């Protein structure tokens, strides 16, 4: 009898579980997956991307033969919240922000909006996490959100929502999540390189019609929350040897105009020694990496290739640095290295972070590339038919 009572009690108490005030039926919810933030005439212009989640979930019948459907909402307000409330007027169902996975700032917003205010407005809301990817763009946000990936796949498979695999193959500009964006934005002496998203219609055609695709074409440079400049990816080749180091970078080697070879590098080992000569820091850079030969157009010895690759790497670092000096941006992250290494000197030279380190000097740049293997061909092979 006692056991019976206990069982009844246990079952009874389980019934309480169903009476949850906060229950949401998954099918009755709108999921906002991306937001774009523009800023014009002192007003925040919000763009929201919503996906039909039946196009996201994998169904048994394989992929759909129709393109995934995307809705883009737009509203404006004095604050983000005001814009969102305007959107709620038409959402028809409850909105869930927990699956927000990308945040795009327009160039105007990066330049003029109160970034810390925007971050506060987003992160203070309990459903929004620090995990969304963050980008900047100078394309219309509506266009960005309606550019779809290949094979009628859901936009969840585009670089807007899943940039990592793409980056692994072409590690020039590292994608950034909200956590590292904020971490970098609020770090003394640090320069943030926010990936910029663009659309290109030149690369792909679908049945002869141009098929626009998203691309990461450069970075917006910010010193803390101050906007400095946009830089195209081609000019940033030296950055990857010091900041966001990653394996898989390629270097094309040329002799004058003549093509020689291309090598792919391991994750570089970088050391920056800071010499405090006459009160001004001089940054001496040392980079070491191991290479694999990808293509060889001209017969060269291992030693020659290693030397050329090293020189190429050094030139890239130097030209990125001088580009940085031109726009007064520390794109190689030298100032932040000083901040970490010698806090007192940093404080003295930057007035506790109020003024950026005036033209940081790059001293010696020593680069060493070792070739580890030559791919599927031998290093030395006949450059003739027979």
């Amino acid at each position, binding site marked *: 009898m006692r056991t019976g009572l206990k069982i009844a009690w246990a079952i009874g108490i389980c019934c309480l579980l169903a009476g949850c005030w*906060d229950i949401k039926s998954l099918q009755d919810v709108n999921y906002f997956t991306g937001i774009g933030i523009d800023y014009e005439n002192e007003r925040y212009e919000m763009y929201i991307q919503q996906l039909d989640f039946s196009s996201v979930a994998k169904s048994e019948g394989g992929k759909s033969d129709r393109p995934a459907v995307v809705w883009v909402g737009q509203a404006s307000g004095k604050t983000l919240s005001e814009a969102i409330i305007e959107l709620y007027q038409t959402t028809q169902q409850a909105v869930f922000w927990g699956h927000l996975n990308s945040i795009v700032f327009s160039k105007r917003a990066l330049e003029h909006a109160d970034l810390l205010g925007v971050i506060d407005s987003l992160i203070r809301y*309990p459903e929004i996490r620090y995990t969304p990817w963050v980008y900047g763009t100078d394309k219309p946000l509506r266009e960005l959100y309606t550019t779809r990936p290949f094979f009628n796949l859901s936009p969840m498979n585009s670089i807007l929502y899943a940039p990592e695999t793409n980056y692994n193959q072409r590690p020039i500009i590292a994608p950034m999540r909200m956590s590292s964006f*904020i*971490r*970098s934005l609020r*770090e003394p002496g640090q320069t943030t390189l926010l990936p910029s998203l663009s659309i290109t219609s030149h690369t792909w055609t679908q049945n002869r019609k141009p098929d626009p695709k998203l691309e990461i074409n450069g970075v917006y440079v910010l010193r803390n929350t101050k906007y400095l400049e946009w830089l195209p990816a081609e000019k940033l080749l030296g950055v990857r040897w010091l900041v966001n180091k990653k394996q898989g970078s390629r270097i094309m080697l040329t002799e004058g105009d003549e093509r020689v070879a291309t090598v792919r590098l391991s994750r570089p080992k970088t050391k920056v020694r800071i010499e405090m000569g006459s009160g001004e820091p001089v940054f001496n850079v040392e980079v070491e990496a191991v290479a694999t030969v990808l293509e060889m157009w001209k017969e060269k010895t291992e030693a020659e290739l290693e030397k050329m690759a090293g020189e190429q790497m050094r030139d890239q670092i130097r030209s990125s640095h001088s580009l940085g000096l031109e726009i007064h941006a520390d794109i190689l992250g030298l100032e932040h290295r000083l901040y*970490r290494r*010698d806090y007192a000197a940093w404080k003295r030279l930057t007035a506790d972070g109020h003024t950026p380190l005036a033209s940081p000097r790059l001293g010696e740049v020593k680069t060493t590339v070792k070739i580890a293997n030559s791919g599927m061909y031998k290093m030395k092979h006949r450059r003739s038919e027979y």
Partner: protein
Amino acid sequence: MAMPQIRINVIQTMLMFNLAIGITNHVIIVPLILQSAFRDSWISALLAVPAVIVWTIVLFWVMKLTGQRSLFRWFREHYNAVIAWLVILPLVVLCMMILFVTVRDTTIWTKVTYLPKTPYPITVTLFVASGMAAALCGLRTIAIASGILLPGVIVFGLFVMSVNFQFKDYGYLLPLLSNDAASIARGTQYTLGGLVEFILLIGLQHHLSKRFRLRALLVLTLAVTGLVFGPVLAAITIFGPFEAADQRYPAFEQWRMVMLGKFISHLDFLSIYQWLSGSLIRVALASYLLFDLLQLTRSRFKLPLMTLAGFLLVLVCSDARISDANFFHFISKYYFPNVMLFFYAFPFVLLLMIIPKRGKTHESQASAT
């Protein structure tokens, strides 16, 4: 006199305290340390270690010299009832404060994060009721429950730590000492403020079946000190020191980062298990001790009194006039600093009171056996 034979062993005590005090160090004081010492928070925690060792040794001697007998009885026998009550009183007050701070912090967190639409008094009532029910069942129940809950808490903790390595950059721990000594000291004070709750050990020492060895006691307090480092280091390396210092729930934010590949994310519900396990054991232990210290464990009014206490607790915690900002101000400016000062000194004072009467201890023990 027939002593109640509801004893728990040393291992059980360690599990129980790991949960009950671990939650303070792992969760409640993390935002406090971060907002005072920023990037140097982990140095603050490190500085607490020697202080903890000294304090633990003193605590050990208090336990040893009182023969792990009931503190109240010992002081009544060696001094008088008034002194005995004065010795017990701070512990009683501490238990009451622990109940308030824990219930309040846990339920507000619940309200803000995952049950925004559930009426707040309901959450508080259910939570307090479960804690009190466990306390009514006795120390042994609480100890056994700890043994069941703790392994899961540890496994999930290790999980969140390792999954988040992908977001951490330990470079953000440098430069060292970018904050002044006073800020770092404040961080240390919060760390110790959480750790001196181990004083509760002398409140239940007579329920232990064996003597606590110094080594075991040091392992326990140092392990819980170690718990401070996890969320503090992770918060700085994932979010940067300034963002971390602005977060209300830094430890929970780390759970919300968890991502494993493309398909596994949103695992923060597991933190509810961790947080509630800690809080529940903490509330249960504090309620049990509150009644035990007041010599009410065997009282026939225990049930009505505990219901009354629970009712008052619910009432105080759901007082709408206390905002979370008020509460946070209270724990950062008043509660933890004062608890730290008072209870850091407390075992030293007890030891000074015990040493002169030491000879008598052996006599009374000899006559008792």
